[in-house]
């Protein structure tokens, strides 16, 4: 093979230098099987080659953190002896190609990550980004993604308790499907390590087919032309029933102490756990290909090694326990076979019959992937963008502007989505979708966690550093609105092509922003996921870091909701509103069609103060409701509090549009009983939070002082906006 040939490594996504590095490491040319394994393990997705140098700077330590980044999921101790696993993943590209199965298998993947820690998955959140709904293909994608999440998540018995849905032009041909999952450690924390030479590797779950082989199929044909890519199905079909059995069988194995360690099979197929588990433990592994249970008879060895067939796990088991492990799998109706053995060699050896078809150092696959310090540069267009008008011109009429923003699918109710999700299983959903953060009472102990995902692509487009800080702050605030204490984050970084210096700059800035905000708020990063190459036809999405925040609420019964509680309660606004915070706002986009200027300014000290105020306000029982203004500003936040409990209100002063629609962070609309107003003022003062009396709950109108609408009209707009826009679409 000469270098000028259409080389397979290129079609596999490896560069000339990477290929040479592999040759150098092995001291010979790699076999086809080895090349396939390297190509997946050294891919951006598995090796984090463009992001690693930057992610290193994130804060990862905290008193509650039991496991930080680097394992299947972060693990957080929420109360003595009670630990949870928390992680987010992306499944963007597969969800564009085949939205139903792409989204479904996205759920499957994150759930197995949680499971691999020995945790029972108990909650999902699904931050989603789509194009505008006036496009039929987009409506189809929305329907199918939501249906896929619903079909898979409901069936495996993991409730989906929150998420986001944002519609913006830049996602039209590049939707984002991120999924976060929470699990509770049931018996003991597991680590994905292949300890103990002589131990058996048991592969259990679904059979292995050609799923997800995609680009690597070039290896199967002599010529590497376009059509070879078509030959193999790369679409993965989810099987929620197998996943459910996998959950139950895995947890039974952990409970009975039958496994030394296990890891799920995701991207990279069996090559991934086989190399990662051994390299972490300093061991090696021999894999007998012929023992792997195949769905299709004529699979090539390399296909078996990198197949991404879903719903599979690899467990390392002591020889004496093998029988018991196989029995547990049989009881749950799962195929299980001993396919490998842990060795001392430090190598991953793959045998087909007696033939050694791959023999590589496990570390070379798992740890020694390339690390790139990609060039990044602040693009000049960002300066032009930031000085442009932010779109804060006044509206023709305020009531009309309010209704337009309320009708925007970014703001309007997402009930159409979340009613399709089981969000109540496990009797823990104290607050579910529709709340600022989901509040989930854990099955063990009387303690709850608050969970939210937040990210604002527009802010990050205007300023990735500020946008990322704003996302962390909003996530923390959403958690605090329920009364919980923000404790840790997981994050999913969705960006364009990192080989472009402006995209890389956005990435570097966003990571720096997340790090700074997390340090200031005391919420370390427990892990996450990077999704690059979110581009279609050379156009990148807005930089979209999604923050998954977890908070702890010691008394679930003290949780505070966003809905007003009783007529006569006093509405107060905590935090300061700046009339200059309309850059990148929903108002600027919806009313004036502008996305420009600078995003709202953020003071993290003010944010911390507000969080402290909200927590204490909830714990003391002073707060009857709390809700933070985000998209759409104060008007929308107050309206949402009324909509959530079907109560009207009357504001006591008139404000202009720049105050009403400003998206200043670090604010909350709160209510308390009229006789406790002074007490609440005292609390705010102690925390150094400005608090202004804003109005009263009651009546059948949403009366904003300068304008008013009937409660029924607002309800109609809020509830029907999304279903009406989707109504034109339809699928089987």
């Amino acid at each position, binding site marked *: 093979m000469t270098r000028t040939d259409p080389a397979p490594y290129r079609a596999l996504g490896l560069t000339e230098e990477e290929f040479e590095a592999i040759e150098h490491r092995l001291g010979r040319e790699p076999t086809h099987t080895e090349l396939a394994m390297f190509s997946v393990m050294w891919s951006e997705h598995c090796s984090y080659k463009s992001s690693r140098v930057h992610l290193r700077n994130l804060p990862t330590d905290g008193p509650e953190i039991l496991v930080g980044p680097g394992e299947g999921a972060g693990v957080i101790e929420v109360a003595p002896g009670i630990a949870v696993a928390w992680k987010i993943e992306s499944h963007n590209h597969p969800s564009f190609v085949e939205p139903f199965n792409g989204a479904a298998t996205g759920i499957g993947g994150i759930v197995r990550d949680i499971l691999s820690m020995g945790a029972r998955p108990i909650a999902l959140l699904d931050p989603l980004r789509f194009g505008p709904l006036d496009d039929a293909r987009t409506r189809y994608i929305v329907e199918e993604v939501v249906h896929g999440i619903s079909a898979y998540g409901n069936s495996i*018995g993991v409730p989906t308790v929150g998420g986001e849905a944002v519609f913006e032009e830049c996602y039209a041909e590049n939707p984002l499907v991120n999924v976060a999952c929470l699990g509770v450690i049931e018996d003991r924390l597991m680590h994905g390590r292949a300890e103990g030479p002589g131990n058996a590797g048991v592969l259990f779950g679904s059979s292995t087919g050609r799923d997800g082989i995609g680009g690597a199929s070039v290896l199967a044909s002599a010529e590497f032309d376009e059509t070879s890519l078509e030959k193999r199905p790369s679409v993965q079909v989810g099987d929620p029933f197998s996943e459910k059995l996998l959950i139950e069988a895995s947890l039974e194995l952990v409970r009975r102490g039958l496994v030394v360690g296990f890891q799920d099979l995701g991207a990279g197929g069996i090559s991934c756990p086989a190399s990662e588990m051994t390299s972490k433990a300093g061991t090696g592994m021999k894999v007998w290909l012929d023992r792997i249970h195949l769905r299709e008879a004529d699979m090539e060895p390399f296909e078996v090694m990198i197949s991404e067939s879903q719903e599979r796990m690899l467990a390392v088991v002591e020889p004496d326990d093998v029988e018991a492990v196989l029995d547990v799998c049989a009881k749950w109706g799962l195929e299980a076979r001993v396919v490998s053995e842990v060795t001392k060699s430090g190598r991953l050896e793959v045998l087909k019959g007696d033939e050694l078809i791959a023999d590589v150092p496990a570390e070379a696959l798992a740890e020694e992937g390339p690390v790139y310090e990609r060039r990044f540069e602040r693009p000049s267009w960002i300066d032009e963008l930031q000085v442009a008008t932010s779109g804060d011109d006044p509206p023709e009429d305020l009531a009309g502007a309010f209704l337009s923003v309320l009708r925007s699918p970014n703001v309007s109710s997402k009930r159409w989505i979340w*009613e399709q999700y089981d*969000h109540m299983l496990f*009797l823990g959903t104290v607050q579910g979708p529709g709340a600022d953060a989901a509040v989930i009472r854990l099955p063990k102990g009387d303690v709850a966690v608050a969970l939210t995902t937040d990210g604002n692509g527009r802010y990050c487009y205007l300023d990735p550093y500020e946008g990322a800080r704003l996302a962390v702050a909003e996530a923390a605030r959403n958690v605090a609105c329920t009364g919980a204490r923000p404790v840790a984050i997981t994050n999913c970084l969705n960006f364009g092509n990192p080989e472009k210096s402006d995209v890389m700059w956005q990435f570097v800035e966003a990571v720096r922003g997340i790090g700074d905000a997390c340090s200031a708020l005391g919420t370390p990063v427990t892990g996450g996921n990077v999704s690059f190459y979110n581009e279609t036809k050379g156009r990148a999405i807005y930089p979209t870091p999604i923050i998954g925040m977890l908070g702890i609420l010691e008394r679930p019964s003290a949780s505070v909701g966003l809905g007003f509680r009783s007529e006569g309660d006093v509405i107060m606004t905590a935090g300061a509103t700046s009339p200059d915070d309309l850059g990148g706002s929903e108002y600027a986009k919806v009313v004036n069609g502008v996305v420009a200027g600078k995003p709202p300014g953020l003071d993290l000290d003010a944010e911390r103060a507000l969080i402290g105020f909200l927590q204490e306000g909830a714990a003391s029982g002073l707060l009857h409701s709390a809700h933070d203004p985000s998209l759409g500003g104060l008007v929308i936040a107050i309206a949402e509090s009324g909509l959530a409990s079907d109560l009207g209100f009357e504001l006591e002063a008139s404000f202009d549009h720049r105050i009403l629609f400003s998206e200043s962070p670090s604010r909350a609309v709160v209510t308390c009983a009229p006789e406790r107003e002074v007490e609440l003022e005292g609390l705010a003062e102690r925390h150094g939070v400005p608090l202004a009396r804003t109005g009263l709950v009651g009546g059948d109108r949403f009366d904003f002082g300068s304008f008013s609408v009937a409660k029924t009209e607002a309800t109609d707009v809020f509830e029907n906006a999304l279903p009406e826009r989707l109504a034109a679409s339809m699928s089987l």
Partner: protein
Amino acid sequence: MSARVGVILFPGSNCELDCRRSFDALGAEVEMIWHGDVALPDVDLVVLPGGFAHGDYLRTGALARFSPIMDAVAAHAAGGGLVLGICNGFQILCEAGLLPGALKKNVGLKFLCKWTELRVDNADTPFTNRAHAGRRLRIPINHFEGNWYVDDETLRSMKENGQIVLRYTSNPNGSLDDAAGISNATFNVFGLMPHPERACDLLLGSEDGALILGSTLDHVASDARAAV
């Protein structure tokens, strides 16, 4: 003596722990039963919980009704024992022929997880005796196939007998006669799509489900008294 409740665990069930927890809280003695067993332990009430037995593949309940335990469940019912099917459990009971009718896809062709309001139209059953006729209950649903159907003639006789025990006040799924919960002719087998076990705690939104679950326990207790 407290009532003994057996909750059957099918592969793919997912509400079994919630059922256990809610019955536990009401003072019942709860036991899990594996679908592959052929005999029932000594229980007063058999519960078929919600979930997706066998993935709901082919049809909801189509494979589960062949589980080895189902013969024993049928025998238990034939002997007058109480059987409660919730959601997927209701679907399995219909497939097994222990309850009349079948459950089709919701008219909106969407999975629906939401709170519903139910009306008790027959309070004189082992599953509703803690309520009074006309009582409204707030209990959530969580299903794709809850659109109950039965032929006209059967429906007529069921209505006459009072076998349409619970009705939705606002039909969410197209179910015939707004039926949310139905009973067999002898009132010892009861199936409903809403999840009473999810409505036994005010912190989660309602305690009305305890009326349904609690009724079975009262019935068992009064049976026991009668037997003494």
